[in-house]
């Protein structure tokens, strides 16, 4: 039987806002056959489209732990479908030095989470962000669409250099 957090997540995948992003190829779920065996809730794999850059993929996959959704944000990192493991640091998207992009996707912190208030692990270990970035404070009104739109914007910004 689905847990309440899983049910909410599934409901949000049916929402107009999520669907509108899917039909525009901004984000989506990978096909079932490429998912690792035994992937169960609260783990979810999604993809996010990225701006075209030489030798870089058109989309990045992320593996999220969405336990407690929507009361708390998900946490996760880039995922490699071919190796069925976390994406190697060398293959992760790179940003202009000193940019917000480079900070969010930094590889010198915790490689299993994103350095962003929408990441549960990052948010819990940075209580000061509540005051510093109140606009990005995750609440139970936030959905996976807020998360995807935020990371889609970063991966399609001028600060994204490629891999």
């Amino acid at each position: 039987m689905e847990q309440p957090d899983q049910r909410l997540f599934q409901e949000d995948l049916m929402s107009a806002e999520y669907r509108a992003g899917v039909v525009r190829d901004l984000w989506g779920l990978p096909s079932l056959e490429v998912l690792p065996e035994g992937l169960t809730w609260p783990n979810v794999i999604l993809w996010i489209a990225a701006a075209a850059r030489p030798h870089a993929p058109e989309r990045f996959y992320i593996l999220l732990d969405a336990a407690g959704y929507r009361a708390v944000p998900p946490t996760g990192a880039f995922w490699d479908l071919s190796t069925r493991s976390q994406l190697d640091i060398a293959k992760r998207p790179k940003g202009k030095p000193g940019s917000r992009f480079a900070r969010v996707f930094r590889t010198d912190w915790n490689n299993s989470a994103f350095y962003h208030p929408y990441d549960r692990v990052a948010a819990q270990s940075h209580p000061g962000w509540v005051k510093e970035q109140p606009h990005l404070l995750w609440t139970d009104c936030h959905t996976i669409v807020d998360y995807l739109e935020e990371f889609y914007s970063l991966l399609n910004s001028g600060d994204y250099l490629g891999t």
Partner: protein
Amino acid sequence: MTNQELEIFVHGCGRKPQVLIATPGDTLRIALVRTGFLKEGQNDILVFAGECDEALSEPDEIEEGADMHTPVDIDLSLEVLGIKQHHHVHCSPCRNIAVEVNFTGKTKRRRFSPSATVGVVAQWARKKFHLDPPTAAEYILQFCNSTDQPRSDKHLGELVREQCSLCFDLVKEITPQG
């Protein structure tokens, strides 16, 4: 959903967008009554088809411009109105929305269609304030006297409350530190 059915995204004032399933032969009124965005016989709501981005092609010298996007006749069918699969429809009491954007002590104003997105307003504002393209995207819209920054895919008509107007500050995104 059959081949004849269309998936349409419906937006409205102060509520979450919804997916509407309809057939090309349905009138827009019937389809919207089914979603609850419109009451039976209601005629005080204007309905716009599509997402308006006229502001992005507006010449730079135009000050206080306005979208020409006109509401549709909801008693016509989706087919006649040219509403197709995955199109957006917006229901609003506002004919247009008076938007003010403040940046470095200056204000730019324009009247947008309720179906214009926050992303379109942000792009227009960055252009209007002549922000340097490589860094312009770091500047985003934040509601005046607030720390709320609406998502770029939100339609303006979803954000208005009692008045057909919105006020934003153009602010630089914060880089997480610590």
